[in-house]
């Protein structure tokens, strides 16, 4: 047994483009993470509700619809409300650099744009994990 990295992969919004989310979910699986895949059309409330029940370490949210400036802040606020502000949020999708800067200022850990090799978020997550995770004594 022992601790595994648990990560929620969510795709909010009304568009049906989940290919990117599926690719990243599979890459995370191959990296040895436990990936909770929620599917399409998730609201921030559904995402945070699932994250709390699944006790994930990281929320990975893909936004292609242009609604990132409403979705990410809402997710961060809800996490705080549910006493889960320690969960780490990262994002992907089509997000202009200046918006990405703003989101990271609000507390999003990292934003990965289109064409990012899947090794990048995986390395990022492993680094974050090493820095933030205290090994549980068993």
């Amino acid at each position, binding site marked *: *047994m*022992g*601790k*595994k990295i*648990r990560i929620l992969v969510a795709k909010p919004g009304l568009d049906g483009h989940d290919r990117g989310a599926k690719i990243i*979910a*599979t890459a*995370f*699986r*191959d*990296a*040895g*993470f*436990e*990936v*909770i*895949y*929620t*599917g399409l059309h998730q*609201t921030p*409330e*559904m995402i945070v*509700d*699932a994250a*709390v*029940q*699944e*006790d994930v370490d990281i929320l990975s949210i893909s936004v292609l619809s242009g609604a990132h400036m409403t979705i990410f802040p809402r997710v961060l606020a809800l996490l705080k409300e*549910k*006493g*889960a502000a320690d969960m780490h949020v990262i994002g992907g999708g089509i997000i202009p650099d200046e918006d990405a800067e703003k989101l990271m200022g609000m507390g999003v850990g990292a934003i990965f744009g289109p064409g990012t090799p899947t090794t990048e978020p995986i390395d990022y997550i492993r680094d974050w994990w090493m820095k933030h995770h205290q090994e*549980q*004594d*068993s």
Partner: protein
Amino acid sequence: MTAADPARERARQEARALADRLAHGERRAIAQAISHVEDGTRVGRHFLDLVYERTGRARRVGITGPPGAGKSTLVHVLACLLRREGMRVGVLAVDPTSPFSGGAILGDRVRMPSATGDDGLFVRSMAARGNLGGVAATTYEASEVLEAAGFDWILIETVGVGQSELEVVELADTTVLLLVPESGDAVQVMKAGIMEAADIFVVNKFDREGGDRLITHIETALQLADWNREGGWRPPVCPVIATREEGVDEVRQEIGRHLAWLSGDRERLQRVRRDKIERRVRVLLRRALVEGAWAMAHIEERLQAEIGRIAAREVSPYRWVEKILRGWRYRTG
């Protein structure tokens, strides 16, 4: 190892705090307790010890069947039904872990659109983490966490199973086996294993070709087996179209009937539960003994030191195992 062991005392305190938060209905505490139990931490063990007396009252239903049979969909519809009855429902959905990477895709939530803001429903995905019996090694303990949190019903969804992954039977009071019209012919349903484990059969996707034929096959097999299971429970066969919620009411009724039958004979119910708990204790003890002995005799290091010679056929694995065992016997006197 004494009471003054600070790490142990810290784990106890953390477990106590977790149990308090759980008693106050804090959902994050439920989730964190399950993680501790899943990861096999010391906090998790203390926690289970603390809440054990609060467990044993929930009704536990196992839902099993081959991949793609519709388990998640049925669990979702059943959970909604039970919620409408005012029952608090916990769901444990198990998916397989990759033997290659150790990772997993837990995708059962896709078919379980969670009713946001409903405190009476809690859905948790679990990776099998190498256990091959259709559930995770810690699914039983996870269900105890949910029971301690006051859920009336626990629905346990297995990984997609083949013919012999039956561990869910040990966890559940009632086991529901889902099949689809293409699931097989008369001989398949006569085979040993999973077909014998079902308390209730569901033929899902009944709008497809062959559903009636499969029901006939199952019923014939049940007659041939003379179904002389204790007390004479004869598993019913329910045609269902889960995506349209058709036939799920009947499944709910049959689960109720089975539970009533189970508890109709108090002595039998107590014996069945006692036997299951005894087998559970054996599993726990065996696991603890193996882990303990493995560490105490430095078996991992010794195996790594010797595996090259074994692979090169210089030492036989049988002799090596014998040697380890002899050393162990000597050590324990």
